[in-house]
């Protein structure tokens, strides 16, 4: 049914976005790791960092979105996956943690050399995370995760030819997407030399990715024939074909240095792979568990759908703004004409005894309503009174201290003229 399936569509959409966006981020880490020494390596690392810096947090939140919607809408399936695949998911978690740490700590670096060191220390995680997540996805896709509390094989479920192949594919495609994205960035910025380097890397990763993908066909055919069969079924084949064509077309566009369309096709290739997987296995999530069976109750699903749609109305324009600013390079512009502050003079703040009395009255009313009275409504009003007390008190003290330029004494921020009377 539609209601039972909709949250899964959200989960898969989130997963596709996570794979593309964070894939680009992990891939950027991959290239930082392989950037080599010397000024050229430094430059590449720096560039990868600056391209991703403003967006990496937003990119990683897609994972949290996927997890929360999944456990709300399909709780049993979630519990089963998280227990059987505890090891790869823990490894992936470690990867996410250290990748994030690289961004969080980089502002502390005071030379390009230090920044490079921070990148390199943490960049190993950029390979680990997509690999582990790919292996976990492979385990689910090949039906190796049964329903139950740690019911599947803790190691063999994800360390087997099919899963490992998918893990490797995840690493390579992340590197590919990242190189294409960064090359597009560099082209737009007019960084010719860097762009040429990234183009070569994109082409290399693309070729390697193609070889791994072709190899994956044989591995799946031999190791997980059921998945192979469903991937080439009439339902999934179109998506798989789109993925292959988009991947090849991206390669061609990169070759022709048409980076802007290339990055959209690269994203499409990744998204189509996930769509192909979903279509191939639909409606099965885990062996013996369909989407309908796994879904939560009616009211929960309605709430999930409503809140995701409502959230999307806020989210996508915001994301559009962020990516608009980043992709248009607004964040790369040299710090130029900085508009001066508005008015030069602060308004004389309103500081009367009345204000202080009002704050005191709010405090007393708050105590009475919150701490003496018993009714819930009284508590609510009491909280509002106390919030009013803090705000008005803050206003009185802060504006008193900072508001007026006057003689400065040793221990005041700025002494204000007496306001009393």
């Amino acid at each position: 049914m539609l209601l039972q399936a909709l949250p899964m569509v959200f989960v898969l959409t989130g997963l596709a976005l996570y794979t593309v966006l964070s894939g680009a981020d992990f891939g950027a880490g991959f290239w930082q790791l392989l950037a080599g020494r010397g000024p050229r390596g430094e430059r590449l690392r720096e560039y990868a960092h600056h391209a991703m810096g403003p967006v990496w947090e937003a990119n990683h939140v897609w994972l949290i979105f996927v997890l929360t919607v999944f456990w709300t809408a399909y709780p049993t399936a979630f519990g089963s996956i998280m227990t059987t695949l505890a090891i790869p998911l823990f490894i992936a978690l470690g990867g996410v943690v250290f990748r994030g740490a690289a961004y969080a700590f980089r502002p502390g670096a005071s030379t390009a050399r230090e920044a490079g060191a921070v990148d390199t220390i943490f960049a190993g995680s950029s390979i680990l995370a997509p690999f582990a997540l790919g292996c976990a996805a492979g385990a689910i896709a090949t039906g190796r995760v049964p329903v139950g509390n740690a019911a599947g094989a803790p190691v063999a479920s994800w360390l087997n030819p099919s899963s490992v192949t998918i893990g490797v594919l995840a690493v390579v495609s992340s590197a590919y997407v990242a190189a294409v994205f960064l090359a597009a960035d560099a082209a737009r910025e007019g960084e010719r030399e860097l762009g040429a380097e990234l183009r070569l890397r994109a082409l290399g990763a693309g070729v390697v990715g193609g070889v791994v993908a072709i190899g994956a066909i044989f591995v799946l055919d031999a190791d997980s024939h059921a998945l192979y069969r469903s991937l080439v079924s009439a339902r999934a084949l179109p998506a798989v074909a789109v993925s292959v064509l988009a991947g090849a077309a991206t390669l061609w566009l990169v070759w022709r240095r048409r980076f802007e369309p290339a990055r959209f096709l690269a994203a499409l290739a990744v998204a189509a792979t996930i769509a192909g997987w979903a279509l191939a296995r639909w409606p099965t999530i885990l062996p013996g568990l369909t989407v309908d069976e796994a879904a939560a109750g009616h009211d929960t699903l309605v709430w999930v759908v409503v809140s995701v749609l409502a959230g999307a109305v806020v989210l996508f324009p915001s994301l559009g703004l962020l990516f608009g600013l980043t992709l248009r390079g607004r964040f790369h512009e040299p710090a130029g004409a900085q508009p001066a502050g508005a008015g030069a003079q602060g308004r004389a703040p309103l500081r009367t005894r009345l204000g202080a009395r009002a704050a005191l009255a709010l405090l007393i009313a708050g105590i009475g309503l919150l701490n003496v009275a018993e009714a819930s409504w009284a508590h609510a009003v009491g909280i509002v009174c106390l919030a009013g007390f803090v705000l008005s008190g803050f206003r009185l003290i802060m504006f008193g201290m900072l508001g007026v330029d006057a003689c400065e004494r040793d221990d005041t921020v700025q002494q204000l003229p007496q306001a009393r009377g």
Partner: protein
Amino acid sequence: MSGIPLAAALAPAHQQYLLQARQMQALSFAVHIPLVAFGISFPVLVLFVEWLGRRTGDEVYLVLARRWSKVMLALFGVGVITGTVLSFEMGLLWPNFTATFGSVFGLGFAIEGFSFFLEAIFIGIYVYGWDRLSPRLHMLSAVPIVIAGVTGSLMVISVNAWMNHPGGFELHDGKVTDVDPFKALFANTYLWHELVHMYIAGYIVVGFLLAGVYAYGRLRGRWGRYERVALAVPLTVAALASPVQVLVGDWAARDVAKSQPVKLAAIEGLYRTTRGASEHVLGWYTDDQVKYGIAIPHLLSLLSFHSWNAKVQGLQSVPPSQRPPVNVVRIAFQTMVGIGTLFALLGIFYVVVWIRRRELPRSRWFYRALVLAGPLSVVALIAGWVVTEVGRQPWVVYRVMPTAAAVTGAKGIPVGYALLAGGYALIACGLVWVLRRLARAPLDQPYDVASEMAQEA
């Protein structure tokens, strides 16, 4: 563990390392929660200082806001990491909790995910947009961060309030039916005191931590106009919020007395159900009583139920297997209340000095106290959560699902625990390093990799 699993979607597993799993969760939580405090209140402070700067045209405020916003970004980044860890652990450690009740409480986290998203997006825009957006747009871009701070904590705390005071579903043969997520999460009377208490705590922690940093600077002779503003803004917030927090705490305790009498009994170390119960300050709970404590007759009844002789339920009323570890809860509670009371006094002192002399306190002791107050505020914050969470034990969902029934059957919890602890130790070192570096950068030239690269090129 003799508690009967009342509800479980997956077969409960025997987990040899339940205690380690709980500690791992507690560690992850203790690391994350101070960062949440920064998520709640820091954007408001930064925005206020920027607004001051735009309003007065005074560079000092703008420099301060800009530097704080970099710290805010670094802390938010670490918060994203530790938050991701927590959401993984919901499944990695407590799969049966999510598998059984995901449909009831999960919505809160799903909406919180959106708040997190908006925070991540607009923090990126705000911090990277300092010189690229008009002042008005730049200040506007901080507003969603402030709002997301409120909605995010509302959502997470709605889930915690539900775990402490569950509702909005029915149980039939261990299966959850008739789920009403809205009722479960938001029509819960337990939600509001938790939310307000935590929200104010966010301001107190950040206020005292920031003030403590600049107080330390003052003791070592760094005391220009910049430092005074940087100290006064957070300190004023914390000073006003601290007395209010004592009042809110009283409200919270009365709600706990009503909904979770056993937790209250553990907080107070009250074994027998008593009329006109005494309150014990300090002391140690052993042999079913508080020893070496100072007893204040009738105070517990008075505080909890506003009545001289009200009956207070004791630990005795439930079997031993359903009692939380008394001393952990009790000491955590006394720590929180003790620190909170000191903060309230410190805040009142500050406000009184301001009213009488219209200046910041001069005493070096005041600034020494502020230096201490920073770390103590984090201790109080964590102690408060220990009271809520350990006080709820042995239940993960109060009187519905024991923690032991929620745990994963996967092996290797100690390995994961050790790795996580090691990773967090590394990140803590890194964070200290980065914050020291940010603090040391010269005031007029905020370090910027991009400009350095441009100069080198």
